[in-house]
């Protein structure tokens, strides 16, 4: 799977999981922050997203969780995390 296809898949996962009713995949800029500014996600979303990554890709976030949340900074960093750590 190419990176862009993975990014697309992650965009769809974010929209579905977090029920972002008026957001389309094109609205998510891969370099824009996912949290607070940018897409406007919050602390509850961070927990939901962690669960979704686990379910979909078998990724157990590394124990040093604070730093693993840095992977959630934007879509590019999230895709890099999935790329390097996916089990399925």
């Amino acid at each position: 799977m190419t990176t862009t296809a993975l990014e697309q898949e992650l965009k769809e996962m974010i929209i579905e999981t977090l029920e972002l009713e008026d957001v389309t995949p094109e609205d998510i800029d891969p370099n824009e922050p996912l949290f607070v500014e940018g897409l406007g996600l919050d602390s509850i979303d961070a927990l939901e997203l962690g669960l979704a990554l686990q379910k979909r890709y078998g990724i157990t976030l590394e124990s040093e969780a604070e730093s693993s949340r840095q992977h959630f900074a934007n879509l590019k960093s999230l895709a890099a995390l999935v790329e390097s750590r996916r089990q399925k």
Partner: protein
Amino acid sequence: MTFRRLADRPWRDRATTDTIAWLPPEADTPSRWLTATEWHARIGAWQQRLLETPNTSGCWRLFEPDPIEFSAAMIAIWERGDRVVLPADNQPMTLSALDEAGVALGPTEPGSESDRAGSPPDHPPQWHSRPLPDIAVSLYTSGSSGEPQRLDKRFDQLDAELATQASLWPLSGRLVVSQVSHQHIYGLLFSILRPLCENSPFSARACRYPETLYTWLQHCQATGKRMILVSAPPALSRLPEALDWEPVSAALATIYSSGAPLSKDASDRVHERLGHPVHEVYGSSETGGIAWRVQQHAADWSALPGVEVSHDEDHRLWLRSRHLEIPDQWQRQADLIARTPQGFELLGRADRIVKIGGKRISLTAMDQALSALPGVERAQTLTLQRRDLRLAAIVQLSPNEIPHDHRHHRDTVKRLRRELAAHFETPVLPRYWRFVAPWPTNSQGKLSAEIRQHLFLDLEDRRAPRWLGERLHENGWQVTLEVPEHCAYVDGHFDGQPVLPGIALVHWAMQQARRLFTLSGEFESLERLRFPQPLLPGDRFEMTLDYRRGDGTESLRLECESQRGKHVTGRVALIHRQARES
């Protein structure tokens, strides 16, 4: 039991080697324990800072996310004989609303985390004979009117509550790890004051994520420590099953949850994964702790020792409690309860206060803040039971602000959320937005529960349009609709150019018509149907439906128009079954 009252200043005569706090392992730094001597130096540091800061008000506004710095600063303030004012968060508007309340301490940058560089340098503490202040802390919470409400707590109120908890569930020297903010009463009592009064260490960092909790449990397991977890429903209801909790769960001693009721499902899952039941505490900033339960034993709540619970015929809760400002007087509360054989159950609230992700929010305050924004004429917020509980907003914008397409809609939502973010924390900002014009009402002039449900119907049904209101028009109705971005009818949804097929519009027209008119006929044919251009996801449009009835036939003239032009024109002929059969 080693409980000592705050009034007896249990922070002073600690053995120098006593461990006050546990500093969890960080990237390159192994974990370690903070001794009483080191902690006293932090209290002294804050005492110096207070000495150097001009303040004649006797109040200090403290927002400090670091538990060690927070506890040291709080004690330094008390030792001066001054009062601690705790803002609930550090949103700019929250802080400016409290500008009268003393001098601010803690990180100065709004929204910022603890600022170690800005903390004062170590200094030996000074123990004077100055009496403690009458009021220990003032908390702020959302009042029913939408205005922040100040709640003063005396030492005897806090001590009564801390003593109750110590006798029910002694900490016994175990490590207290918190997943909640100590700027609120629950976190303040459970994660800071209880450890101080019961001589148990607390974690020097909040444990925000399940993976962090896992690592810390592993650490406790390896070092023979046992942990007490002070948590809340948002964290407890999202414990990943993929983590293998079983080997580390023995390091856990007790789990507390407060802030909102935990669902039975979530409670069972926590019990199953962590191997311990959740002790839920019910209470509020106004009332302190009221009752507790363990759902695996009973769903009902039992009053805490020293708390008497009753209700009136409207089911309003009445309390007499040592945790209240006036301890011997029955006082009516905003919560609704019903008696059960073993205690009571919660029925909700009599006012418009809700909890989103554990954060208390007045819908009245949100309505007011939203209505005051530029371009907003009227607004009403409500909760939607989706992904737990989230806020939705019905907003009447001035006519030139109404978004007509996806791009404009997104920009409007982003702008409104950004402007609200000055007043509220992100999780409580509305997630679902309906832009109406005019204000949708029923025949009694009310935005009824039925209308509210109609406005969010598309969330339940992926094939439904987003309904935004309707009005009488010549022989029929004009309905304002939007094409939901994730509508099941939208073709090529995740491809380049998604559009709504024309036939979906005809289907929607028939659905609306069946609701608005008493159609007795069945679909016969489509006549002179034209689809000049397709509707795109996010487009807002007017659907005009004119109804004509003749001999044995009915027809529906249909027109859909957006700002970009017409999307469908034509006629749907209906025929009565009797006519068809004859």
